[in-house]
């Protein structure tokens, strides 16, 4: 194995693994400080997320959301854009999915409803990202500022929509009426039952397949098409991209719309797949979590799936932890997430110099790429 390959392995696998491990050790210290046995807590967490069928279902259900938002952040990132607006785009995507379902004739079949809701989520998510993208491309407003503002705008707009426009008649709760059952994304346990396998019921639905499909499509798009090439070229070196005849303004628009559309799909998993109605705040935390997921996953779909699984595990296991153990509130999930983000994000390269020195030492014989 030559040095470059070793370094690639260190960067791609060993480093994230060590970072996560460090985050877990730090979490253990936190547990010790609040008089909780970390071994016991780890057992509860792992059992809660992988110990029984329902738990696994929840874990993968949460993972699905993180895959969508992780991919969303990654696509924008490859164009050199930092999309912080995943929260808002997911939320407004929900409006798109909900409207598509509520305005269609309830007697229609699932083969109309499901694609319609997916398209609704994609289009509304993309539109919500299009405005900041336009402002960045043609007016020079910084995308980080505008997308974060659009999160707040989305929240206010959705409150208005839920309270005044879409509220179920005769109800005080700000939520829409129940979607017709034809419009529900099938649950995995129902599908499995159709094949004759009985598994415990959980919110896990077929959106997870949509997430995996999106991962493949994003990979294909970014690395195997001319448009993906243009996006990556712009992200790496926009001056060179202009020289190459690529129009960065267009790239900003395209990349952000794809990003917003992907974030919008969170609502397909949450609303079409599980809640079956438009509710408030279904999106909370996934948009920002997606940033960490993309960061940990090195903006590559494969890495994103793994990182999303980690975050899904923390979500589900953490909830279980809060439920099972006295002295732990649900906030511990936030602490654990925070530590993972700290060690995988902010301190990403902490171990790198040491690892490279010891595992991929410089070959002084002059194994060298460049020869004049």
């Amino acid at each position, binding site marked *: 194995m030559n*040095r470059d390959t070793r370094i690639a392995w260190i960067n791609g696998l060993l480093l994230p693994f060590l970072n996560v491990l460090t985050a877990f050790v730090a979490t253990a210290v936190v547990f010790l400080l609040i008089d909780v046995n970390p071994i016991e807590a780890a057992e509860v967490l792992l059992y809660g997320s992988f110990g029984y069928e329902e738990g696994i279902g929840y874990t993968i259900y949460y993972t699905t959301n993180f895959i969508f938002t992780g991919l969303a952040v990654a696509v924008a990132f490859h164009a050199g854009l930092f999309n912080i607006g995943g929260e808002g785009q997911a939320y407004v995507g929900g409006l798109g999915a909900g409207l598509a379902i509520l305005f269609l004739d309830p007697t229609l079949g699932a083969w109309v409803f499901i694609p319609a809701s997916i398209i609704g989520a994609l289009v509304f998510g993309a539109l919500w990202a299009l405005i900041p993208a336009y402002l960045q491309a043609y007016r020079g407003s910084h995308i980080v500022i505008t997308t974060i503002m659009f999160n707040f705008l989305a929240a206010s707009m959705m409150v208005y929509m839920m309270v005044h426009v879409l509220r179920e008649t005769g109800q005080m709760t700000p939520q829409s009426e129940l979607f017709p059952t034809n419009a529900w994304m099938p649950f995995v346990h129902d599908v499995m039952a159709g094949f004759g396998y009985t598994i415990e019921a959980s919110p896990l639905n077929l959106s997870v397949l949509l997430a995996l499909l999106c991962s493949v499509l994003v990979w294909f798009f970014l690395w*195997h*098409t*001319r448009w*993906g*090439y*243009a996006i*990556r*070229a712009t992200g*790496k*070196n926009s*001056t*060179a*991209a*202009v*020289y*190459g*005849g*690529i*129009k960065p303004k267009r790239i900003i628009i395209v990349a952000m719309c794809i990003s917003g559309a992907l974030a919008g799909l969170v609502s397909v998993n949450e609303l079409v797949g599980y809640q079956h109605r438009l509710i408030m705040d279904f999106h909370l935390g996934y948009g920002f979590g997606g940033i960490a997921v993309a960061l940990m996953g090195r903006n590559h779909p494969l890495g994103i799936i793994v990182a999303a699984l980690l975050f899904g595990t923390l979500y589900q296991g953490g909830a279980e932890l809060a439920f099972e153990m006295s002295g732990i509130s649900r906030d511990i999930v936030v602490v654990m997430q925070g530590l993972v983000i700290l060690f995988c994000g902010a301190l990403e390269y902490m171990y790198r110099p040491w690892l490279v020195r010891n595992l991929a030492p*410089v*070959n*002084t014989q*002059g*194994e*060298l*790429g*460049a*020869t*004049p």
Partner: protein
Amino acid sequence: MKNLAIELTGIDKHFGAVRANHKVCLQVKQGNIHGIIGENGAGKSTLMSILYGFYQADAGKIDVLGNTYSFTDSHQAIAAGIGMVHQHFMLVENFTVLENVILGSEGGLLLANGLAAARKELTRLGDEYGLKVDLDATIDTLSVGLQQRVEILKALYKGAKILILDEPTGVLTPQEAEELFRIFGALKQQGVTIMLITHKLREIMAITDQVSVMRAGEMVAHRDTKDTNREELAELMVGRKVLLQVDKGPANVRAPLMTVKHLTMADKQGVERLKDVSFELRAGEVLGVAGVSGNGQSELLEALAGIHPISSGSIEMLGVEMNAKSALGPDILRDMGVAHVPEDRHRMGLITDFSASESALLGYHTDPKINSGLWLSKDKVDANCQQLMQAFDVRPADPHLKSANFSGGNQQKLILAREMERNPEILLIGQPTRGVDIGAIEFIHQRIIAMRDAGKAVLLVSVELDEIMSISDRIIVLCDGEVTGRISAESADERTLGMMMANALDSQDSLDPFHSMDKESSTQATSQDLSA
């Protein structure tokens, strides 16, 4: 017998797998001008950085003026009497000369005392060495030559007995360079030791007393300048015989392929970078664009390549007209057969984070030959790169290697291959040999001539006058965005071009104040020479 100013013994330095310096020994006599030459990447800059305390050597011994040191930062090197003038000046643009000089040695809490003391000292230094600069002028109003003088003053003010200059003439007109050499003479008279790092053999021959040659991280030769010649030095640098003169036949010039009329272009701040530029580029010729860097050459290339919109005037290329209203993007121009090798390969020519095969695609990623439907075929992308690498002898011929990991010469060859192998009608080419080693320069020049001989039109922008004069058939000179000279290559010489580059061929009143100031101080320096 003069004492040694600097003695380096057995200096070793590695960067990762790269052996930048290997058992380097060097002796520089006090009060001499000592040249160090070598190709890019030969280890000159690393050696000087070690001497100046930027890097620490892995092994070896440094003696300065008879004392042994091991510098851990540049303050210690300065204290030992070493001063460095970098290729890129380290000056605060909106500070005055005086403020710049005392930066880092302000002397006490209140500036006033320090400034007054510094003013006295600088006036003395200026008189002694013939280094006249207006101490109260802000840096951004000074010409490049004067800015360099400030850098030298700065070093002397800090007590430098040994001056290291890294490629000092790269940004100067020939006249400014001569002025610099005159200052060197004055400094030498006063016992200052000068180390000159350059790759220009002509300068070495003209002003140095001794010369040391580096190749691939090692010192390969030390010579007294009077006992050597350019051919020998070039051969020592490259390690084989080099053709210094480009071998070319007469041009077979045909119809114009590009006509530029009254081209004016303003940058984003609204400053006019090109003013009323007109010229013709004909099939079968190389048109050289000379000028001190920053006088509109980059902008001209960007305008012709469709990267930057023009303000007025027109460019007609291959029968299609571009003007302020109808711009053609780089993609369209490429389709028409206008290829562009940009001046700055890292900023524009390739994407250093991409693999070679992806960089070899820049500008051509929509080519149907590489795409099959939606799919950007990896096999075809690699095959394309492989073919380019073979045609231009890019080493190592590995399409998957990151673009950043190729040497400058090979990066340049890859770009040239990408732009030239598609057989364009017009080739726009900027600084084709900047940062490229001599061996590759020879190859690149031959390729450009081959294109010309195949009846294509080549527009060559370069700050290397030697290159302009040896490759071009006709030359235009840009100064401050205007065409200040047109001349055929046969009748061009360095002096005439230099005058054109400074826009000094016209009447005296067209000179800007800085040039007249140059004149004034140059006479001072000369009189200093004579009196000393």
